[in-house]
């Protein structure tokens, strides 16, 4: 159960990672990145990228590799 104040986008990203963990890491990272590009609003993506770059320890390592595949959001 989640009692820690993990931010919503980190928690959601980690949950996504669980659903792709059975794939090889490179494929999993690409598929997760495609999912996040398709469904996440730019400011959520930006936060995720920033968290990964800042070494947020709550992030699943697979998501850290995903963040590297995400292009910076297009300015809206």
């Amino acid at each position, binding site marked *: 159960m989640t009692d820690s104040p993990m931010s919503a986008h980190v928690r959601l990203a980690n*949950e996504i990672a669980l659903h792709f*963990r059975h794939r090889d890491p490179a494929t999993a990272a690409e598929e997760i990145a495609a999912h996040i590009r398709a469904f996440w*609003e730019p*400011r959520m993506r930006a936060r995720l990228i920033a968290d990964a770059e800042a070494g947020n320890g709550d992030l699943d390592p697979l998501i850290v590799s995903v963040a590297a595949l995400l292009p910076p959001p297009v300015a809206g």
Partner: protein
Amino acid sequence: MSLIKEQDYGTPARPGEAAVAVEIDGKEVLVPEGTSVMRAASEAGIDIPKLCATDSLEPFGSCRLCLVDIDGRKGTPASCTTPVAAGMKVRTQTPKLAELRRGVMELYISDHPLDCLTCPANGDCELQDMAGVVGLREVRYGFDGENHLDEPTDSSNPYFDFDASKCISCSRCVRACDEVQGTFALTIEGRGFASKVAAGAGGSFMESDCVSCGACVQACPTSTLQEKSVVELGMPTRSVITTCAYCGVGCSFKAELRGDEVVRMVPHKDGGANEGHSCVKGRFAFGYASHPDRRLKPMVRERITDPWQEVEWEEAIGHVARRMLDIQARHGASAIGGITSSRCTNEEVYAVQKMVRAAFGNNNVDTCARVCHSPTGYGLKQTYGTSAGTQDFKSVAKADVILVIGANPTDGHPVFASRMKRRLRQGARLIVADPRRIDLVRSPHIEAAHHLQLAPGTNVALVNALAHVVVTEGLVDREFVAERCEDFEAWERFIARPEHSPEAVADITGVPADELRSAARLYAAAPNAAIYYGLGVTEHSQGSTMVMGMANLAMATGNIGRDGVGVNPLRGQNNVQGSCDMGSFPHELPGYRHVSDDAVRTVFETLWGRTLQSEPGLRIPNMFDSAIDGSFRALFVHGEDIAQSDPNTQHVTAALTALELVVVQDLFLNETSKFAHVFLPGTSFLEKDGTFTNAERRINRVRPVMAPKTGKHEWQIVCEIAQAMGYPMKYDNAAQIMDEIAMTTPTFAGVSFDKLDRVGSVQWPCNDAAPEGTPIMHVDGFVRGRGRFVDTVYVPTEERSTRKYPLILTTGRILSQYNVGAQTRRTGNVVWHPEDVLELHPHDAEVRGIRDGDMVALASRVGETSLRARIDDRMPVGVVYTTFHHPTTGANVVTTELSDWATNCPEYKVTAVQVALKQTASAPSVSVPVPVVVE
């Protein structure tokens, strides 16, 4: 328009080619084999007198009024029970028949009150009509003999009376309850002259199993079963055909009126979804539309602690536009957004998403489907290529095995449930996967072959195990898979792993391996097997995974693309399908096309004259999170009560409190409007002009029976806000909006109000390739080309029972109430469900010292509420259940922030809770945060 009376053919149509030729009163008619003489005559334009026959029921042959003369046959057989035969020659009018019929009517009338002029059914009474038709002029027996004229009236039901003195014992009500509704609540009690209709064991209708669907009232040929509204108001004088605004079945009704006053709602026989049947909500619970709680004037206030001030429309719309623009100027274009409603028409929803995308200039539009069927959208698009159920409702009549997962159709989708029960009574086998022993598991004349009573949150483990059996026991439809699907081999290897076997998952799901194996074999071996599912599938942290798991199972067994099979979401609200179709999701334009698709965006940009954003917008939960972090400042809420319906109420109310501007458009002030700065009054379905799209993709017209009580259609208000924000957006009528939808959305290309008025309804896709619509999808190929198998890894939810919260709460709905209850709580339906209750197993109650009816505290890690306990062994040990129809109990105070990984659909169905006896007797209460003003 005058009162519409559909032709009653006397007996049901029979399937097959019209190949049997008969001659009736000199007219030749061709009908299918098995057709009754009565129906054949009716099709030839010859009405044979009748009382016990009506075409929604199988022939019964009791009234002896429909006698005919047939060449070469002895006697005068009843035309309702006599099937046609080739070359048959029938006469329906002879002196002998006339004498016999007058004799029959004379007997009926000798025991019937002669109060026609003051009878509520005057002018709508078949007994009265038949007396006229047969030329009855006298009753030789007098009226002083033994009779039933002093039989009492049962007025216990809030919507109809049962006046036994007027009963002619034709059994139409009993048969309607059996054959149409499938409840078997009524019977004929006694013998001979003493025989009479009885509800249950002879008590009142309210004490019986009657579900108030109205089928008996509809079938009654006299005033024995009569709507109270007709008794009070008199017979209606005109009809408007429209669509029910409750569940996703989308029943067609005749709104029958006197002037602008609705007297009654009568299910429309030609309605594609319901074919003349109804439930207690659609049939009777329409009074909310004229309830005094309706707000008809716009209101504004500066702060949410201020009193509301009524204003004119112009001022309210100008106020919304100014505040929205001001917030955007200070915080950026993405700081505002809107939520569309599944209770509104396609045209209204289209207008709202257009306002957000073109006038707000962002994609921050989401819909209440986020919290119900968004995983259906994701899962079916990934596997089949589009977000829609595969079948029409009629298809269930061809199913040999029906697998119901996480749905409770008899409560949530009762009119479809009646279709399903009819098929089950004909011999189809039933598998139910549900933690609760829902009514379908065992009810009159129905018993599930398997009840897979799984633990909440273990759907994916269960569906994987079903598929494991299919794959490892050689039950795959290899030909179908090879011709129609892709990625099968990888999935086959995945699902064949030992960890997916029934034995391996038995400890997870709680379902015995043998039972699960038997269920899988039954499903896979059926000529036609169909899956029907509801929110018990989607409202989980793995909702999307489960949808894909079911899609895999259907593909692996070849159960896609024909009658009797498929994967079918039972949509919760009336226009969930439509609101999703109309581009309500933040990542999709109308027609489920991604906002990043340049070609699609160009279509809309060219028409709308604005550049559209290519990035997805905020989902509802993202809006809440962003409101709390300050990057999202204003929300337009169209016809939703998010403060009651969305999970983790404290989080929702904190978000709403943080917003600078909340605009609510609704019929009533609701929980969300407590946090609103502007209230825009909405229109009821009786005032709307547009379309709803039901769970079978059927686009039905919603026709106004009166002008908007607020003075404006909802789409007009949306357009005026957009215009006040500087974006020109104008339509003369709702038909023009549908024309724009058809122009921009390929699956709706062939839809127009004119076509719907002409053909009744169509199921999308409706375009040049399918001008009359598409009842069954994926017939020759999947929308995405080949059906795609997707690995479905079971990931246990983070929400687990603990020592502090040892029980699992799951939520749902009941028959008489609807969603947050805003409508049904303002009708007579409250007699069945005056408050939400907590169902729990006798063991869980006993160890806590709880008795039936006690007030209990229900607590989770996020909140606490109190409600009354109902002890019921339909619950498994360790699982409790409640509904969210009443704000006083506020079930969502305890539900959590957890959601589906792919779509953020909340995990309503799994919350770890504790239940404790409340020490002091009190009414239900809830700790709802008091609105706090943000300076």
